[in-house]
Each structure stands twice: as structure tokens, then as C-alpha cells.
């Protein structure tokens, strides 16, 4: 219905008007900074990444292994029971070739973002990360991939300690 309206009543403000500051404008900049407590589960997970390890949590109720780890199982609503060290490889569950940055600007070169089901974790239990050393058109669902880690001295206990996952090389 609104598509039939050619012009609204009143004075239209154009982007050019705003750019030239023809109207009173109030601009406010703030700096909101947070330092979230990682807690038990994420703390151990990040510490593991620093050592080049991926850890999950086992729920004895539903017998799933949760990765990233959580101290509770959302399905059973009970505390998870034990730590499980997982392999640093898995397979692609879904992926997207992205041409936009987080500020919505356009990328010259795309990144490939994927959900990776980690080997040893429960089915459909994956982490989101980047794919590398592979052309976008070569990526396939179920493709086996392995982690490419930063060097030990450069790791800081962050998800970016894994630079990306690449197609798994045959041993």
C-alpha cells in the first residue's frame, strides 16, 4: 500500500541534508567495555586451546559430548560429568562464503565460515570457525578438515589460536 505513495506530507530530509548538517543533530559516542567471566567450562576450553587441545564435556544423562563444553546439559538439565579431550579435526556440517565484514563493508576476498563437527564430539555438535587452504568452490559438506594452529608461543588462550581448519591431509 505504501508503494502507492509518491510523496509524504511534510518536509523530506535527504541524506544530503544530513551530510551538510542542515538540521540540528546530536551525536553521542560511548565506550561500553566488558570483561566477561569465562567461567569453568569456557575457561578450561580456552586454556586447552592455548595448549593446542580441544576439550569437551560429557553428559552422563543423554551420553552426549558437548563441544564447546558446558557445565550443564541443556537437554537433561543436570551438571555435565567429565572432561573429554577431543581430536583437533572434524567434518564440515555447513558453510558460507562471505563477502561482508562485521561492519557490513564489502570484502575484496571472501572468507569461508563453517560449522565443524569435531571428531569425538556428539553428532551435530560443532564449533564455528574459518576454513583455509581451500578454494570456495572446492568446499563440500562432510569434507574432513583439521585444525591449523598458531605457533605455541603465539597462542594466547583464544578461539583464534586455531587459525583455521583446512582439508585433512592423508597421513
Amino acid at each position, binding site marked *: 500500500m505504501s508503494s502507492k505513495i509518491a510523496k509524504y506530507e511534510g518536509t523530506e530530509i535527504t541524506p544530503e541534508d544530513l551530510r551538510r548538517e542542515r538540521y540540528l543533530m546530536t551525536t553521542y559516542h560511548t565506550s561500553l*567495555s566488558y570483561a*566477561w567471566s569465562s567461567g569453568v567450562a569456557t575457561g578450561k576450553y580456552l586454556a586447552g586451546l592455548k595448549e593446542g587441545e580441544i576439550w569437551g564435556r560429557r553428559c552422563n544423562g543423554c551420553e552426549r559430548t558437548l563441544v564447546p563444553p558446558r*557445565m*550443564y546439559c541443556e537437554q537433561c538439565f543436570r551438571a555435565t560429568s567429565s572432561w573429554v579431550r577431543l581430536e583437533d579435526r572434524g567434518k564440515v556440517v555447513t558453510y558460507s562464503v562471505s563477502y561482508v565484514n562485521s561492519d557490513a563493508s564489502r570484502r575484496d576476498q571472501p572468507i569461508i565460515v563453517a560449522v565443524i563437527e569435531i571428531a569425538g564430539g556428539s553428532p551435530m555438535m560443532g564449533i564455528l570457525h574459518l576454513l583455509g587452504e581451500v578454494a570456495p568452490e572446492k568446499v563440500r559438506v562432510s569434507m574432513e578438515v583439521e585444525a591449523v594452529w598458531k605457533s605455541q608461543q603465539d597462542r594466547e588462550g583464544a578461539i583464534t589460536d586455531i587459525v583455521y581448519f583446512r582439508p585433512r591431509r592423508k597421513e
Partner: protein
Amino acid sequence: MEKAGRSTIVLLKTGRVEIIGVGYEGFRPVVSDLSTRELMFQAASKAYDDASVNPRRDVGSFICCTEDLWEGWSITDEMVPDQIGAAGRPLCTIPADAVTGLGTAVMHILSGLAEVVVLEAHSKAADVLDKNAVEVMAQEPSLLRPLGATSDTLAGLEMDAFLRTSGFSLKDVNRAVVRGKASALRNPRASYGGKFSEADVESSEILSSPLRVADKAEFAEAGIVLVLASEAWAKKNKRDSVGIDGVAWNSSLPWIEGGEMSVSGYAQRSYSDAVRRAGFKGDLEDFDILELDDTYSYKLLQHLLSLAGTKAAARRILSGKRTALNPSGGSLGVGNLVEASALHRLLECALQLRGEAGSIQVKGAKKALVQSWRGIPTGTGGVAILSR
């Protein structure tokens, strides 16, 4: 004098709603060992055990009182279900204090939407590195924010006006701080108890005159969960419970836009509506326990005066002969739990009415009142009346 309509009022037409379980975790200045989600999980697990309910089976609706800017992420709704047993279940977050959350829970039950409802709120205030930046974001952006006033500046202005118009003195305000800190010494949930003298308060650093550091509640962290059920469900399932007789909440003009400063319109109207709904015929002095908002020391007196109606009645309550005022130590003693502050007051009253308040137990407590405020620069708050 502002004119305002009736508060949003919850009409309990089909029986009471009952608090059948409580749980909490934290209550420390910083809960550094648990994430927000783990804190919530611990509190929820205890509440469900207390209520003997399985959240995956028995709970029909979950409500979290939370504000995105205090959490540090947008659309917090997506971040809260798993850790309180609400994955794949009906859950809503509301950016309001827990008295409003309690009213929402009551409506869920009395409308037939759910028989058992979970109400959650938490504070991870230490995660917010610049709390002042969050508070300033609450100010009107064109006319107020550019002037550079903080929440404490606005509190100082209101406190100054309150002292000139209410009949209460700086000595009364100082005593409120001393009382809160002293009561908190006996409360295991309090982070800021202490033996303060009025001289200690007067010698604390000025924030914005006449407001001093000691007049402001310091931040603390906790997770709190209440489990609520219809009266019929509680009886049928033989649950021990505390009744909610009436809930109301209201907004008034912030004083900086013409609201009153000696009393709080939101508190007055919430109180009169909650009392009417509860069918309570007595005076404020007839409650055994009052847990009133004291985010700032003078606000305790302002809220008390608003509910008591006269300075004489407020002074009788302050004398402590008949009604226990903030036996928990209030926010001044326990800490400012941000969006969980009102739920903390409800928790304290529920424990008192159950006779489980330990060293701060008010003997023979049967009827309690909780009053909440959402903080500067708001004129929003509520009242809940509980009994057993």
C-alpha cells in the same frame, strides 16, 4: 503536582499465586569463578530442588529480568534458556525489575498460560568495566546527556531537594547507612556489612553534594531464581509455599522533568494498588517486614515516606519497635544487584516468611512488603505483598 493514572495492576481473581521454591548463588562483590550462565544454572538447580520440580517437565513458562546493556550483548533472550532448563520451552526476557517480572509471572499463571512459572534475575555487574557509561546511556540524549552529569550527580541533586522538602535531615540519612551496614553483618548474603558510625558516613568522600560514597550501594553479583505456582497446583502437589497477595507497578515523571522529590509517585501508587488488591486494611506499620529500595541512602527514606504517608509514621517505623525495615541490610549492605535487586528483596522476604532467614530472622513474621525502584534517572518501581 503530576497527575497519573492507576498503576498496572494484577487482578488475582482466581486465587493466589504461591512461591514454592527459591534458589540463589553468588552474593559476592565479584563471582569470578562462574560465568553468567553457570551462575544462573547453580541458582536454578537449587530453586528446582527446593520446589521439587523438574524444569523440563513441570514448568510452563520462564521469565528472566535482564537488560542488554548490563549483559554486554544484544537480544539477551537467546542467551538464557539453556542454563535454567528452558531449552525448547516458552521463555521471555523483560527489561524490568523483578517486581514487574513477578507481576508478569502472576499473569501467566492466572491467565491459565502456565501452572508453574520460573522467575530469574542475576547480576554480573563486575563484568561491566565502565558502569557509568551504561548508566549515562539511560539519560535523555539531546537535553540531558550533553551536560555531562552522571547518575550520582542526579542523585546528589535529588538528595539535596529531598533534604530541603521532606523534613528528614542529613543525620537521618546517615543513620540509614549505619543501619543497613549493621544489619548486613548478620546476613550471609551481604557483601558490604560493617560497623559504621554516622561520622564514618559524614567523612566518606563526596560524590556530588550532598551525596557521599557511603550513601551509594556498591555493586555485587548473584543469581536468583523463584519458582511460582498457582495456589491449586501448590495444594494438589503438597508444596510448602509463601503467598503473593498483591503486585503492582507504576511509573511517574522523573523528578528532573517535574516529578516530586520528597516522595515517589511510582512508589505511592504501586503501594495503594497492591494493598487494595491484597485486601489489606492495615497501615504500613502492620507489616512485619519491609524490604524497600535503598540503592541510595536517601531513597530509603523517600520510599518509606511515600508508603507510610506521613513523616510521623515513617519515623515510627525507623524506630524499629514494630516493623523490621530492611532486615537483610538492603542494597547498602548486600550490594547493588542491578536488575536482580528486586528479586533479592523478594528472596529475603520469602526466606523470612518461611522462617529460614537464620541470624536475621524476624520472629513470627507473617506479612512482608517489597518495594522496588529501577534506578536513576527513572521514576519506575513496584510493590509486592507477600504473606504466609
